[in-house]
């Protein structure tokens, strides 16, 4: 099939998914030990969307993300150690500890950036796409957002404008079935939000979001279309949130039988099985162990890194206060 990832590309997607999963698990452990600060939003089970959808992008392409962006960050090429350092508020973090895990940005990799106002990453990517069009560059902009964000007014406004002006933007709807605790069925009268694309006059596709190959294929075609100047696409990747809204979520609303079924549909296991067609299990297991070690090493290093000092921040802040 067109745009199928090469074995090397799929192996890299697999490796990054393992890094993300291990980061999420470590964060869960450290939260239980009382060693994290503020809410953390894990993406366990959703990794194939963020990693698969960003795998074909270049560092020059822009991605905007959500409060649940760890797979988007690692997918876009951010370093695990500096990402974890940001999550722990360290000077070595991508934003010197000022942003925290929900707002990570790295201009060098085109990650601009996490966004904790639900839906705000959607018009953000459209604005970047407008810049790209005016500057006649061949970049694209991508927003990865959830089914909760799809219900915002700005989602409608942004999709309408993007389609109207044929802007080079990809709308990746990471449908994990929940907006905080409220199920998608209680948020929209339709099940497949990709059907809305027709109303904007752009292509819309529904895909299996736990199948990294399908995510890569579909997004690649949309990216090519956008680079040709043919405008935006909406891709709805169906997945499921395995670990609750955040570390403060007390649970009780995600049915166990549903979770058990999704557990059998793990995106990392599926990529592994896919790869066994071309790579022996010993090699794959070694890649997994190394990826897990990379994630764990990121924590060891980041947690030993220094905290920033406030004086440094004040001196480098943009300033619109009194002149005198």
């Amino acid at each position, binding site marked *: 099939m067109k745009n199928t990832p090469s074995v090397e590309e799929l192996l890299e997607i697999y490796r990054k998914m393992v890094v993300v999963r291990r980061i999420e698990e470590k964060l869960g452990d450290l939260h239980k030990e009382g060693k994290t600060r503020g809410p953390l939003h894990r993406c366990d089970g959703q990794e194939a969307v963020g990693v698969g959808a960003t795998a074909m992008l270049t560092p020059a392409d822009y991605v905007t993300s959500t409060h649940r962006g760890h797979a988007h960050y690692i997918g876009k090429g951010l370093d695990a150690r500096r990402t974890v350092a940001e999550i722990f508020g360290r000077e070595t973090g991508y*934003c010197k500890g000022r942003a925290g895990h929900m*707002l990570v*940005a790295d201009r060098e990799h085109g990650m601009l950036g996490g966004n904790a106002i639900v839906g705000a990453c959607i018009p953000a990517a459209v604005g970047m796409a407008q*810049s790209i069009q005016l*500057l006649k560059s061949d970049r694209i902009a991508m927003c990865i957002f959830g089914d909760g964000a799809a219900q915002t007014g700005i989602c409608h406004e942004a999709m*309408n404008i993007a389609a109207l002006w044929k802007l080079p933007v990809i709308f990746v709807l990471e449908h994990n079935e929940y907006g905080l605790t409220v199920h998608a069925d209680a948020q929209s009268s339709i099940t497949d939000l990709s059907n809305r694309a027709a109303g904007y006059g752009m292509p819309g596709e529904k895909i299996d979001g736990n199948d990294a190959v399908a995510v890569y294929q579909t997004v690649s075609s949309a990216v090519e279309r956008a680079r040709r100047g043919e405008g935006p696409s909406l891709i709805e990747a169906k997945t499921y949130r395995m670990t609750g809204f955040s570390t403060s979520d007390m649970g009780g609303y995600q049915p166990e039988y549903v979770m058990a079924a999704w557990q059998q549909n793990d995106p990392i296991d599926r990529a592994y099985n896919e790869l066994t067609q071309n790579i022996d299990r010993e090699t794959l297991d070694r890649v997994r162990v190394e990826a897990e070690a990379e994630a764990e090493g990121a924590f060891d290093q980041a947690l030993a890194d220094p905290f920033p000092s406030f004086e440094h921040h004040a001196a480098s802040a943009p300033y619109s206060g*009194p002149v005198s």
Partner: protein
Amino acid sequence: MTRQRYADALNSALREEMQRDETVWLFGEDISTYGGVFKVTRDLREEFGEHRVRDTPISEQTLTAMAVTAAMTGTRPVLEIMYADFMPLTLDALINQASIYEYIWAGQVQMPFVLRTQGGGGAGAGAQHSKSLDVLVAHIPGLKVVAPSTPADAKGLLKAAIRDPHPVIFLEHKLLYNTRGEVPGGEHLCEIGKARVAREGSDVSIFATSKMVHEALGAADQLADDGISAEVVDLRSLRPLDNQAIVRSVEKTNRAVVVNEGWRFCGYGAELSATIMEQAFDHLDAPVERLGTVDMPIPYSEPLEAEVLPNAGKITAAARRALR
């Protein structure tokens, strides 16, 4: 020097900056084909084309969010929001997006955009088209806010705002568009953050913004008839605020009247009044007199509307109280 209307001075500023820098572009409702409902963008589409002078759908939330991210990715957007009363729709993009990223992302991005809007009462436009909401934006660290009262300042401040590396909210007044004044020829820029003494005086200082500067000048004429010498200071920049100019004037006159067209409660006058208290208390011979719009919705009918807005007569009375 040429004599220009305020609206035409703004138009000249836009034209000159678009000629100078091809990354400058304009967007907003009715600004392109029609030239703007107040004709500030008249004829610019013909010169620069529909992509750099863009008519938009009625989508203020997304347009403002787009200005933020287009500005961080290589272009300089100038967004027109038709009425200041629509500013509430822009606030997530301004407060949760534009104002935070330069600091939160540790200087990785700057956002050189201008949001132009116009407010103010006295035109019979009713409760949803007459407000002055300056404080909604002046409150936010990370945003600059300017409000020119003359054609010369309209041109000089708009050119400076477009060149500024930070977000600038540019507040116009619907009743100033047809006012005329001398505008310096050649390259005319006004530094953001500097007040202007509109009329020298020695008995009482009147600190005013936007159209209230003209009301204050009218009050100064009335006071002069009684032998009172009023100084009128046009603040021009609401944030950053020129504290030094305020202190200098109060040192000279020992009495102060502050007037802004927004509501009085928690209004801009409260900030001015507190600034004078903090920085010039020893020079005061009387309490600061604070004027604003009466704290109620702005009514439509002419005699009702006239009652709620500050004007020359009310300023004159306030100055007399300060001089008692």
